[in-house]
């Protein structure tokens, strides 16, 4: 029953996401909590982090440490750029491209050079951070939101990669590949939609 509960919980949770407008899940939630929930509640951030987490888990032990470190460092760098009033362009499109690549590589499940996984982790972290400008009206609240975003994005990746790395059975590894293909397909479609506009 417990194994049934996990995917059901995931489906119900995904169904509860209401992404009808940009960053709608964060309306009414600000500061550290808003930043913390940012990556969890935005579909593009969620699939990018999950796709990267699956890929890192697949590639372990190669890049098992370096990739998350690169990701978190890039998140911090991106958030620091936002704090310095940098206005990014095409951050979400880049994030979707990273999600598509991560998902595709996870679906292919081939051994990759460590530098490639690390570079992809850094690109994902940077674009995720740059796509997370806080809505706060005060500098203090904005900084708290940025801090929450860093913590939330980091926890999400570590949680997914650590959880997925424990999936050792053949069918579980196949499940990772199928999930990767779903992430890649979703990201490619939306990326095309964005670029077609």
């Amino acid at each position: 029953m417990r194994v049934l509960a996990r995917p059901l919980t995931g489906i119900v949770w995904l169904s509860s996401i209401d992404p009808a407008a940009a960053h709608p899940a964060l309306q009414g939630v600000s500061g550290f909590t808003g930043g913390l929930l940012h990556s969890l509640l935005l579909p593009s951030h969620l699939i990018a982090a999950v796709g990267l987490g699956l890929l890192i888990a697949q590639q372990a032990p190669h890049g098992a440490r370096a990739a998350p470190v690169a990701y978190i460092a890039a998140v911090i760098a991106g958030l620091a750029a936002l704090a310095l009033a940098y206005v990014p362009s095409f951050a979400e499109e880049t994030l979707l491209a990273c999600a598509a690549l991560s998902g595709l590589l996870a679906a292919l499940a081939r051994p990759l050079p460590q530098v490639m996984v690390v570079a992809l982790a850094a690109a994902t972290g940077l674009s995720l951070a740059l796509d997370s400008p806080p809505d706060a009206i005060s500098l203090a609240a904005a900084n708290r939101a940025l801090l929450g975003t860093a913590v939330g994005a980091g926890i999400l990746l570590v949680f997914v990669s650590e959880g997925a790395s424990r999936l050792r059975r053949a069918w579980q590894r196949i499940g990772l590949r199928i999930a990767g293909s779903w992430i890649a397909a979703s990201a490619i479609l939306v990326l095309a939609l964005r670029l077609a506009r």
Partner: protein
Amino acid sequence: MQSHASQLLDAPLARGMTAVVLVTALATPALAHSGSVAGGFVGGIAHPVFGPDHVAAMVAVGLWGAFLGAPAIYILPVVFPLVMAAGGVLGILGLPLPGVEIGIATSAVVLGMMVALAARPPLWVAAVLVGAFAIFHGHAHGAELPPGADALAFSAGFVVATGLLHLAGIAFGLLARWPAGRLAVRSAGGAIAIAGLMFLGRLA
């Protein structure tokens, strides 16, 4: 090979089937290709689930994968969404693809026939065949992707629904381990092929 396949999928099958039931219960009706779709993840889930032509073809992919055994049982469900996304890009970009609806109906006919005839081509042939039909399904979905910010949730919804329909087909296809089940699976393939012919007839 069959025992390997069943060992591979017994647990996820139970999860997938339960998830199919749940998401079907949660989904709100949206007619496939009507041009009017509900937004968000649930709308995306409903899109293929409530299109009988999509359902028939997706289930046939799963049935055939289970019939062929490993590695087709998981290669086909990986290939399909990836190629479907390529077809979806064509639809989103407005690039015309002639005979989309005919291609979708034909996919039910051909894939159903493959199951009914217990066809065992090389894996790459099966993958190319499934991938070719995935382009038509993807084009239809892509052309109707809502332009709003909920596009990602919508596309994730229909990709997941597609995968769950594959899983439903695989679940049923694993009955082929037993002689009576093999007959049932081949009969289901035949029924899908006949349904595909009816879809084609409506288009004529």
